[in-house]
């Protein structure tokens, strides 16, 4: 047990910010929220997340993966709050002193910060359109769902005025800063931002555990409750605060990184999920940008509406999009004929590109689709191995005697986990009743890839 002499209970801005309602979550139990938060949760812009699935068409592989961004967002709110309350309870004075430097936080800094963390967590995914990440490159071309989230939160025509009315004038702008991060965020907010999206954030913790639960896999489970209990603060140079981990939490943190690695390989970048992401992209490309060329149009599309259109297009067979719609309706997908290892480097990627050309020459009648998937697993600095520190995070580890080290120095397991998951694949349009052809293509691809010097 840590000393509790400076223990602080959660602070609320007004009576309307005290927890009053509760909702049952399959992962975290009851999640409580206030009257003011209820207004945001019931707002039509947030409510639409009830109809946007967390994992798009992953249900083609894991039929249980039909959960939504709505329940994930509530889960992140719960976990981010637990983490904030842990820090406020044990290091409240330090946190308060730091936050007071920001304009508008000179009074009640902890109560405002707690509310900012809760709303940032709740609204971090509000910019998602139908099928979440799957068709994002088409729907949010050149900006991503994140930029759309900032717009929805900050602008008065969307959630901005409701947020300011529920809390205080300027609240939406402060919230936008927490969500945006980088140079437009006061450095004192870094702790708040990192609780929602950082190296040990509520977003990841929730989606790993929740997606595992719904997919029926064990890969993403780890002791997130223990990790929250081990969170601490560290005063870096210039008085800036950063999130640290108490020594006791090192193994749960390692488990988080392993969970992330395995969920990426087994769920998020599963080959069948990837090919259906591709179909969705092609489908929306064929439909044309007009379907998503205004915020209102993006907001009006949910998975339910989009799927109804997909089924209708598959049925009528009209337009270039119909063939992709039919593939989705019939679960009739291209099949993998080649894939690199999970740690593909630049040369492997290049060899995959050359292999694609060879396959097209060898099998001119077959449709091949290239794919590459890449995701960061962690960005932790490993002082014994890294010669360059740029882009890496030195996560402070507080030893039992108060000394500060870096997690990368102490963890033997992290040194073995690749920082980046990266794989290139080639899919071929070969039907299930032509297994011989599939075997031939796979064998040809493997031989040629090896000749090119690629690693399997």
């Amino acid at each position, binding site marked *: 047990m840590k000393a509790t002499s400076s223990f602080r209970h959660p602070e609320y801005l007004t009576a309307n910010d005290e927890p009053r309602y509760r909702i049952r979550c399959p992962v975290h139990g009851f999640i409580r929220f206030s009257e003011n938060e209820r207004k945001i949760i019931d707002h039509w812009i947030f409510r639409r997340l009830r109809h946007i699935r967390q994992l798009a068409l992953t249900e083609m592989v894991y039929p249980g993966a039909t959960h939504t961004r709505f329940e994930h967002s509530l889960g992140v709110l719960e976990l981010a709050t637990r983490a904030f309350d842990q820090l406020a309870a044990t290091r409240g004075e330090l946190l308060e002193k730091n936050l007071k430097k920001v304009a508008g936080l000179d009074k009640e800094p902890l109560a405002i910060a707690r509310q900012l963390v809760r709303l940032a967590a709740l609204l971090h995914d509000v910019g998602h359109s139908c099928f979440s990440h799957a068709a994002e490159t088409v729907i949010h071309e050149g900006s991503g769902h994140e930029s759309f989230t900032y717009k929805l939160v900050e602008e008065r025509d969307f959630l901005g005025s409701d947020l300011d009315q529920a809390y205080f004038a300027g609240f939406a702008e402060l919230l936008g*800063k927490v969500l945006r991060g*980088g140079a437009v965020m006061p450095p004192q907010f870094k702790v708040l931002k990192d609780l929602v999206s950082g190296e040990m954030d509520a977003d990841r913790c929730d989606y790993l555990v929740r997606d595992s639960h719904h997919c029926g896999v064990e890969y993403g489970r780890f002791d997130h409750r223990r990790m929250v209990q081990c969170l601490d603060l560290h005063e870096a140079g210039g008085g*800036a605060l950063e999130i640290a981990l108490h020594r006791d939490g090192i193994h749960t943190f390692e488990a988080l990184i392993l969970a992330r690695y395995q969920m990426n390989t087994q769920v998020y970048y599963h080959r069948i999920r990837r090919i259906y992401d591709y179909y969705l992209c092609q489908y929306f490309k064929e439909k044309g940008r007009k379907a998503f060329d205004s915020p209102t149009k993006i907001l009006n599309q949910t998975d339910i509406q989009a799927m109804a259109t997909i089924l209708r297009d598959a049925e009528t067979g009209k337009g270039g999009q119909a063939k992709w719609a039919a593939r989705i309706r019939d679960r009739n997908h291209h099949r993998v004929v080649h894939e690199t290892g999970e740690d593909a480097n630049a040369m492997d990627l290049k060899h995959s590109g050359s292999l694609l050309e060879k396959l097209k020459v060898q099998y001119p009648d077959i449709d091949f689709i290239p794919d590459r998937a890449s995701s960061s697993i962690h960005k932790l600095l490993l002082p014994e191995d890294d010669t360059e520190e*740029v*882009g890496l995070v030195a996560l402070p580890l507080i030893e039992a005697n108060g000394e500060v080290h870096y997690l990368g120095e102490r963890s033997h397991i992290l040194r073995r986990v690749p920082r980046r998951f990266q794989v290139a694949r080639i899919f071929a349009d070969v039907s299930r009743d032509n297994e011989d052809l599939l075997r031939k293509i796979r064998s040809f691809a493997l031989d040629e890839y090896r000749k090119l010097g690629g690693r399997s």
Partner: protein
Amino acid sequence: MSLFLAGTWEHALLAMVAKEAAGVSQEHGGYLGRTAMQKIVYYLQVLDVPMKYRFELYHYGPFCQNILADLEWLMADEVISDSSPKPGKYSRYTPGLACNELIGRHAAKLKGYENIIKNTVEALLPLEPEHLELISTLDYAFREMKATLGKKPPKKKVIARFREFKGEKFKEKEIESTYDRLESAGLFT
């Protein structure tokens, strides 16, 4: 040439920067290394060119990890080449065989940002990496202080914040004159 991996708007932006840099490099010197690429793209974002990249402050100023990852894909697709004599240690990005193909795919949108990209590359490419670190970190410090105070911060506070990042690496006079130049260029409003 068929593009296997590259194709996003951000990829096209990086390709365009490499293409512009090749022209500027011939006329005014300088080369497009890792630092220059990072800082040019950082300034493009400051100048409101849309992109998904998010910059955070690291040892040599604002930096975005995803740019490095994207450059790897662009090199695999021969959109960009690295002609450094010591690849791995240093980089010297030049347009590759597929550079124009990728730019062509995003030509309509790129046209709207052509001048900003050209002017930014022309202004930054001839600078030494250390100078790029100085101006971009100063810019980052200005924006952070503005976000903290909720209004334009005094020069003194920006420089103090810069010192927190950089310590004594740069001389006071050098920092002040750079601040003045950036302010008169209209970047500190």
